[in-house]
C-alpha cells in the first residue's frame, strides 16, 4: 500500500529548511514533490529600496557559501549598464576569489557527501583542506565567509603576496589530488555507495534545465566560464569537466575534478596577476538608465542577474536566478524508482542551497 513520508522542512541531512514529500510503495519511491519558501527574505525587493553601494553588501548575503559570486555578478551588471571598465588587476583578483570560493564550496559539499556515506575519515580529510582554503580567503579579505571584496568598478582589497598564496594553494593541491580526488574516484565504498544511484539522464537534464555540476555529470557540456568567458577565463583558459553517467558518483567525480581545474586557474591567475589599480574610480558610482543581464558560473552552476536602472539612487529591478532554483525541482526525476534509504544521498548530490533558492 502506498504511503507518503514528509522529509523536512527540518531536514535530516541538510541544515536548511525545505520539504520533500516522498510517496513510496514498500521501499521504492514512486513520486516526489518539493516545497520551498520557508526562509524567504525578500532580498530582491530590499535591493530595489537601497542604494547601489549598500546593495553590494546586501546581495552578498543571498548565500553563505557563494556570497562572492552574487556580489560580483551584481557589480558586473551595474558596470555593464554604466559602461565601467574594470582594471585588469581587479579582474584577476575577482577570478581568484571566485575559484577559491568554488574550492571551499566543493570541499564543503565533498565533506558532507563523505559523511552521508559514513566515510568519516574522508570527511575529516576534506574539512582539514577546506579550513586551509578558508584561512587563505581570510588572509586575503579579512573574512571567512562574506569577503566584501567586490565594489562597483573593481575590488576593495589587493592580493599583496601572490607568491605566498601560490605556495598555500600548491600545498592544498597535493592533498586534494592524492587523497581526496583519489578517494572519491577509486575507493570501493564510495563507488559502491554512489554508483547507479539517483540517475538523471542527459535527456532528462535538458528537459529539467539543470545547470552546473549536476548538468555536467549528466553529460551536458555547459559552463558559463567556457560558453561565454568573463573575468580572466579567456586569458587563463578553462577546461570543462563532464561525466556521462548522470548518477550521484558522476556528480562527485565532476566536483572532484573541478577542484583540480580551480587550483590550476588560481595558480595561473596568481602567477600572472597584472599590475595596476584596483578600481576604475573612487567615490560613489553613477548608474545611468539601462538594463543588463549577466551570467556567472557559481560553484553550484549558472547564476543569472537581471538588473535595471532608471538613473535613480536605487536599482529599479534586481532579479536573481540561482542554480539551486533550477536544480532542486529535478530531484523529482532523480528519485523516481529509487530506494527510500537513498533519498538523503540523492538530495545532497544536488548540493541544494535553500538560502539561494528562497532569497
Amino acid at each position: 500500500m502506498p504511503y507518503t513520508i514528509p522529509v523536512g522542512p527540518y531536514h535530516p541531512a541538510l541544515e536548511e529548511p525545505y520539504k520533500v514529500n516522498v510517496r513510496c510503495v514498500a521501499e521504492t519511491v514512486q513520486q516526489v514533490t518539493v516545497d520551498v519558501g520557508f526562509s524567504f527574505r525578500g532580498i530582491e525587493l530590499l535591493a530595489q529600496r537601497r542604494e547601489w553601494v549598500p546593495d553590494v553588501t546586501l546581495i552578498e548575503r543571498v548565500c553563505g557559501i557563494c556570497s562572492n559570486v552574487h556580489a560580483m555578478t551584481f557589480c558586473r551588471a551595474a558596470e555593464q549598464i554604466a559602461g565601467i571598465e574594470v582594471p585588469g588587476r581587479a579582474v584577476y583578483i575577482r577570478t581568484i576569489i571566485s575559484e577559491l570560493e568554488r574550492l571551499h564550496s566543493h570541499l564543503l559539499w565533498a565533506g558532507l557527501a563523505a559523511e552521508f556515506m559514513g566515510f568519516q575519515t574522508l570527511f575529516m580529510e576534506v574539512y582539514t583542506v577546506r579550513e586551509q582554503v578558508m584561512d587563505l580567503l581570510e588572509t586575503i579579505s579579512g573574512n571567512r565567509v562574506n569577503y566584501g571584496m567586490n565594489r562597483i568598478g573593481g575590488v576593495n582589497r589587493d592580493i599583496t603576496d601572490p607568491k605566498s598564496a601560490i605556495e598555500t594553494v600548491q600545498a592544498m593541491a597535493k592533498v586534494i589530488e592524492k587523497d581526496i580526488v583519489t578517494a572519491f574516484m577509486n575507493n570501493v565504498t564510495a563507488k559502491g555507495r554512489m554508483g547507479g544511484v539517483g540517475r538523471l539522464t542527459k535527456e532528462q537534464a535538458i528537459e529539467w534545465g539543470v545547470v552546473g555540476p549536476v548538468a555536467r555529470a549528466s553529460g551536458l557540456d555547459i559552463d558559463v566560464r567556457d560558453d561565454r568567458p568573463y573575468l580572466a577565463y579567456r586569458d587563463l583558459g578553462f577546461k570543462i569537466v563532464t561525466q556521462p553517467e548522470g548518477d550521484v558518483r558522476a556528480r562527485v567525480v565532476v566536483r572532484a575534478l573541478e577542484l583540480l581545474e580551480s587550483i590550476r586557474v588560481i595558480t595561473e591567475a596568481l602567477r600572472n596577476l597584472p599590475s595596476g589599480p584596483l578600481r576604475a574610480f573612487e567615490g560613489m558610482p553613477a548608474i545611468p538608465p539601462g538594463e543588463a543581464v549577466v551570467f556567472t558560473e557559481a560553484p553550484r552552476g549558472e547564476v543569472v542577474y537581471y538588473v535595471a536602472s532608471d538613473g535613480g539612487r536605487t536599482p529599479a529591478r534586481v532579479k536573481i536566478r540561482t542554480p539551486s532554483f533550477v536544480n532542486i525541482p529535478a530531484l523529482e526525476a532523480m528519485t523516481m524508482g529509487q530506494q527510500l534509504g537513498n533519498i538523503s544521498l540523492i538530495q545532497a548530490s544536488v548540493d541544494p542551497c535553500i538560502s539561494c533558492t528562497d532569497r
Partner: protein
Amino acid sequence: MEPTAGDTARADFIARLTAIPGSAQVEERGDGLWISAPHLDVEAMAREMKTLGCRLATMTGLARDDGETTIIYHYARGHDVINFKTATSGNAVRSIAPLVRPASWIEREIHDFFSVDFIGHPNLIPLIRPAELKQGFFRDPDPGSTTPEKP
C-alpha cells in the same frame, strides 16, 4: 568579404527568432540578443526555442504603472543569450510551463511577486511567498505593512 558558414548560421538563427509569431526586430547588445515584442505568442516562442536547442535560463517580471507586467524570457544557447521582452494583457499571459518544465517554478514565483495569471499553468500555487504577504506584493510600496491574509 564573403560571409562564413558561421555568419550564415547566425543570420538563419536570427531569422528564425524574428519569424516567431508576434516577434520583432532583433537588437544585438553587449549582453546578448534582445527582442522587444509586446504581442509575442509565448507558446510559439517556447516551441521554436526548444527546436533551436535554446535553454530557458529564467524569466523576469517587472511591474508597470498601468497595472500590467513586463515579462522577459531569458534563453541561453552556447555563446548566445537571447532575451524576449513582452507584456501581459489584463495582467495575464499564456503559461509555457506545459511546454518547458523549468518554467513552472519561475511562473509560480512571478505569480507570487506580481500576481500575473499564467493561463494554462498546471499548478499555479504559491512557491516562496510567505502566507502573511499578499499575492503581488512586489507591487506594494510597503509590503511589510500589509494586513496578513486570514487563514
